[in-house]
Every structure is written in C-alpha cells, then in structure tokens.
C-alpha cells in the first residue's frame, strides 16, 4: 500500500497540530512497511503538485482540523479544484479538534462521510479525535507523548480496512464527559485554566485580559443576555 497524506490545515506545517499528528500516524504506517508521501495545502503554490498526487494515486488520506463544525474554508477551496475520479480511489479522513469530546466532531464527520461521493471516489472512513489544541506549544518530548496514540492508528490503517474497525471508532473516546468530570473540569476552567491561558498569552506578548471587549461600543453590551 502507498498512501498520499494531505494535511488540510491552513496553518503552515511548522505550527500545525495536524502535521504533528500526521508524523506519528506515518510512523505507524512505516512499521507495517506501508509507504507514504505527505503534502500540506497551506501553501497554495503546491496545489498543482498535490492535485497531481491525488489524481495518480488510489489511497488518499486527508488529515484536517475542525473549523467551525466542518472543513476549513481553505480546504473547501482546494477540494473544489479536484477532478472527478472513480471508485478505485479510496478517500479517508483524520479529523481532529481542540474540543475534546467526540460529539463536537460529528457534524464535521457527517460532511466528510458524504464528500467522497461528490468526488466520485470510495469512502475509507474517518478517524475522529479531539483534545489536540495545545500540541504545537508542547516541547518535543510532550508532543511525542501526546501524538503517540496516532502511531497505533497508522498501524491499524496499514492493515487495509480504512477507519472502519472497532479500534478506530473507540479511538475517539467519550462522546460526552460524565457529570462528575464536567463539574471538575468546569471548576478547573474557572480557576486554573484562566490563569494558565493568561500566562500562555503573556508569553506571546499579550498584555490585556483574554476576554477584553475590544469593540466596547456601549450598545453592544447593553443588550440583554440570552
């Protein structure tokens, strides 16, 4: 098997969480002697090359971050440039997000399930996983830890059944967090996470509160709360 892996993130690979995930996933492919080539759509100048790889190969995997419940606008634009192919080509997806629960990614997954039909190709399943927001800001060792589970998914994909196996479905984790976890996490958000985010922001040069109302036009905030 030879897989064309397309990073559908608008971020340049250096800062892309999806890219880190792809690296780990590809290690799993290599362990099973599956070869691959990787591309990233963030640089429009490479779109002709990526499209050519899409046309010439039959095993395509698009890895992407969830952007407002679906595919990022830039990836949609790229997808519109792809020609129709036939069912000899299989198109699979790896959909990742910042929000951790499975339920957050289902709307995006539903779009991806139907997309191959529009392109005339076969659907190879969608690996769905949240909780990836901070990967790019971790040091190398922690990045490796955070993305290691994707290596196992690379090995699984190498076996040829796309992402239809039970292991791939379980990989998502909980659809919703149970109430005790929500209560504890909610408390952490209120107390610790705010300080943590503010600290991270300070390291990026931010000098204002993260909930700053920059357009503090009086009437905006005079609206009754919904």
């Amino acid at each position, binding site marked *: 098997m030879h897989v064309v892996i397309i990073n559908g993130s608008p971020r340049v690979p250096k800062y892309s969480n999806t890219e880190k995930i792809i690296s780990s996933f590809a290690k799993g492919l290599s362990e099973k002697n599956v070869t691959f080539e990787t591309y990233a759509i963030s640089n429009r100048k490479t779109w002709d090359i990526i499209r050519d790889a899409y046309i010439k190969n039959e095993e395509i995997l698009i890895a992407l971050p969830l952007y407002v419940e*679906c*595919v990022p606008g830039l990836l949609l634009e790229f997808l*519109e440039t792809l020609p129709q192919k036939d069912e000899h080509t299989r198109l699979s997806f790896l959909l990742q997000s910042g929000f951790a629960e499975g339920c957050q990614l289902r709307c995006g997954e539903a779009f991806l399930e139907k997309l191959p039909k*529009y392109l005339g190709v076969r659907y190879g399943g969608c690996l769905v996983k949240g909780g990836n927001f901070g990967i790019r800001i971790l040091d190398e060792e922690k990045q490796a830890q955070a993305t290691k589970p994707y290596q196992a998914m690379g090995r699984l994909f190498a076996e040829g059944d796309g992402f239809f196996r039970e292991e791939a479905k379980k990989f998502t984790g909980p659809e919703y967090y149970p109430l005790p976890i929500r209560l504890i996490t909610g408390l952490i958000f209120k107390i610790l*996470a705010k300080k943590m985010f503010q600290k991270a922001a300070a390291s990026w040069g931010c000098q204002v509160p993260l*909930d700053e109302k920059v357009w503090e036009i009086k009437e*905006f905030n005079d609206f009754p709360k919904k």
Partner: protein
Amino acid sequence: MVLIIDTTTKHIGKRIAEELLRSGKNAAGFEVIDTTGMHISHCVGCNYCWLKTPGVCAIQDDYEPILRKMSSADQVWLVSDTHFGFVSWQTKNIVDRIMPLVTMYLKFKDRQMRHVMRYHHQPDIGIIYTGEGDQAYLERWCQRTALNLGSRSLGVFSESSKKEAVSCML
C-alpha cells in the same frame, strides 16, 4: 438589525433585500454586504485573536468591518452558493473568521464544552443558498454554528424559498 452577507455569483442578496422591502415588515433595519471584489482571506488558525491580540484578527483585509457588523446585528443571513451540498468556501471563510467574537475561556453548556463569548450580544444565524444544497446537512451545520455563538439558527432556505426566509427576518 438584519445583516445579509452575500457571496453568491448571482448576487441574489439584492433580490432578497427587495423582497424584504416589499414585505414591509422590516422594522429593525437591514444591510446587504455583497463580498464581490472584497479581499477576505481564509482563517489561518494563528490563534492570535484568542491569545496575542484578544478579539482582534491578525489578518489585515476587508473582513473586520464585516465582523463588527455581524457582532452588532440581531440576525446574520449567509447567502451562499453551494458545493458538495455545503456552503461555498467564500462563505465558510467568513464563518471561520468569527473566532474573535469568542474567547479562549471555556465552560460546559448543555453537556458540551463551549467557548465563553466575548460580548453579551450574539447574532442569530440563517442561510439562504443557491444550487444543490444538502438541506438536512445545512440545517445541522447552521444549528451547530449558532451553538458556537451562543445564539440560535434561523433556518436554512433555498433560493426558491427566499420568501419564507424573508418572513423570518425582523
């Protein structure tokens, strides 16, 4: 205020506005933004609007005035062509870049993690589309998008049902 953001190649926003005027029911006022000729980039996912310049997008193009209007509108109607049964990439770019309206802070609402809104007021969202839109999917996506803004979906209407859409406008 009703804000109609038209990215369609047929510029149907104008006709929707005419229909709204004819209906004589628009008390809240409206504005049509036709994005033809505007430079509106895709979201690059830099997270600056959350962590470096909270509430401000790092991309300097024609988008910010639109976002300001979206933020103060009562209703935002996305008027879009469709591809793959979904909104066009031009409309998706407009939606992807609403991130300055939410903060990095998180909370649980209705069992799900959500971002805390930056402003108290959020617009409700509706879609009017041309072409072969996947009605059921667009409705689902519109509801989820509104959920992200802490608001509600106004519904999804094909171009031929624009009168129904207009009847939902303020």
